[in-house]
């Protein structure tokens, strides 16, 4: 059964660690436009932190409240909270958000899933036969845009064999599909599949040609074996896997004083197993 993920220290929470790791990855997107959706408190924190640290020119859209580049320093629990739009430089209509999905104008975005498979495909639909789902998922929301996003990023607040599976029951968000050239063949060559996957215990990427899930770094307090034991799919595990560098003092300072003054990330639930 799932247990609360342990960041291996009392210096920061697991959600804080994940937000920091995700923020760092956004350095590669500086100047590019992306977004976070519903139920996305950690990606929201990551985008705001990235702007204040490694990606000052990041453009980001904040879900339901619809703000572009908000400057909140009290992280809301929901992107739909109007306070998530504080200090925005613009507001987007939901229709425009969809239009930009359909026209492939989003550079990056964070998405999660009920299930994520070894090629980074996402399932938000459910588990079991569709006419009699064993687990009825919450619906696909914007996961379909992983097919048109130039570079999708994935995350899951839970790392468990039931979530990281060999093959998703349904593809609501296309990843690298069957790996290899399959995504390029089916969707076209304008977009890439998932770049990274963040979980409570590690960061994963995808191999260069097969586009298969590969362990990239393990969070403090966990090791390779813990990752393998809690993963339901085949995993490429290099001989040497570095530790995810823990949040620096500066990152924690900015996170707690300019992103999340209320400490919302202290009690966001993240689980293992």
């Amino acid at each position, binding site marked *: 059964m799932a247990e609360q993920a342990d960041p291996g220290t009392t210096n920061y929470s697991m959600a804080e660690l994940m937000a920091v790791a995700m923020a760092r990855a956004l350095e590669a997107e500086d100047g590019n436009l992306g977004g976070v*959706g*519903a*139920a996305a*408190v950690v990606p929201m924190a990551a985008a705001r932190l990235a702007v204040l640290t490694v990606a000052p020119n990041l453009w980001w859209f904040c879900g*339901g*409240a*619809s703000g572009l580049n908000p400057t909140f320093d009290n992280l809301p*629990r*929901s992107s*739909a*909270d*109007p306070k998530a*739009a504080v200090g925005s430089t613009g*507001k*987007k*209509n*939901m*229709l425009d*958000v*969809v239009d930009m*999905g*359909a*026209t*492939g104008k989003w550079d990056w975005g964070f998405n999660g899933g009920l299930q994520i498979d070894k090629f980074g495909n996402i399932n*938000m*639909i459910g588990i079991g036969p*569709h006419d*009699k*789902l*064993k*687990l*009825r998922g*919450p*619906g*696909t*929301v*914007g*996961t*379909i*845009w992983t*097919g*048109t996003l130039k570079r999708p990023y994935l995350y899951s607040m839970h790392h468990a064999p039931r979530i990281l599976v060999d093959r998703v029951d*349904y*593809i*609501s*968000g*296309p990843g690298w*599909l069957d790996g290899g050239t399959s*995504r390029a063949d*089916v*969707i*076209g060559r*304008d*977009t890439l599949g998932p770049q990274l996957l963040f979980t409570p215990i590690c960061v994963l990427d995808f191999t260069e040609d097969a586009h298969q899930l590969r362990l990239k770094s393990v969070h403090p307090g966990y090791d390779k074996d813990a990752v393998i034991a809690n993963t339901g799919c085949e995993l490429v595990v290099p001989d040497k896997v570095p530790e995810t560098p823990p949040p620096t003092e500066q990152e924690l300072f900015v996170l707690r004083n300019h992103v999340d003054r209320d400490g919302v990330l202290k009690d*966001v*639930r993240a689980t293992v197993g």
Partner: protein
Amino acid sequence: MAGNQDKVVSLDQAGAMIAARKILSLAGSHSVNSPMALIRAAIRAGASALSIIPPVTTSIASDLLIAAGAVDTFYLCYIGFETLGFAPAFRAAAEAGTLNVIEGDEPFVMLGTRAAAGGYPFIPVNKGVYEGTDLPRLNPMLKKVTDPFTGEEVYAIPALPADVCILHAQAADAQGNAQFWGGNNQELDKAMAADCVIISTERLISVDATRRDVERVNIPGHMVDAVVHVPYGAHPTASPEFYGTDEAHLKTYFDAVRGGNRDDYLDRFVTGPADHEAYLGEVGLSAMFELQKNA
């Protein structure tokens, strides 16, 4: 419905108007700006066998209607209680097979609504949108059409008209000119896609006040059939600049439904209270005032 200059009706009247219709469209986003008082009124008025076309993300607004047994068909894009978990009534009904779920998504709901708003019979989408996904296989309402300009086959999303659209506004006047503060502007297309539009509002303002601040008007009154003045009418969801989401109340609902005590919740908060004022009494006015701090 331009004509009438005074569209103000009582909450009970609005509930009966909703209950007399079958395809119900909602806006609001997640746990913000949901027309909860209208929903409770519709349940009290005996709404049943509804088809729900929700906004792209929905929470208690839809789940409560399902919990009350008022829903047959649900056009799904996303339903959930964020950090609390899956929508409990939705999940139970869907897994039990008592709810017909249309496996929709953002383009399906948004463009189906846009098509209905604009009188397009359908909207064809870019080739890339559904490639590589299981959606076309799972959603029989998606069909292929041949683009007459290129000869290519593309997916078509049908227009999704509604019988009635219910919305919660921050301010509206008696003509129906309505302001929605915050959110992502799904309201206008939702209203245009519906035969009947009913608006609950935090503040009922004068037409002169509307004229003073016309840039804030999101829906012109000629599209609106009825206006109900319901302060705190979005509770337990948030009303921007008035009050924040009542997280504790959402948890009360969530735990009740997941714990098999949905009737207790319905008795106490939906069918039990004689009117909206009694509901607020049950919630507690001091709790309501406390939520204002978080607006």
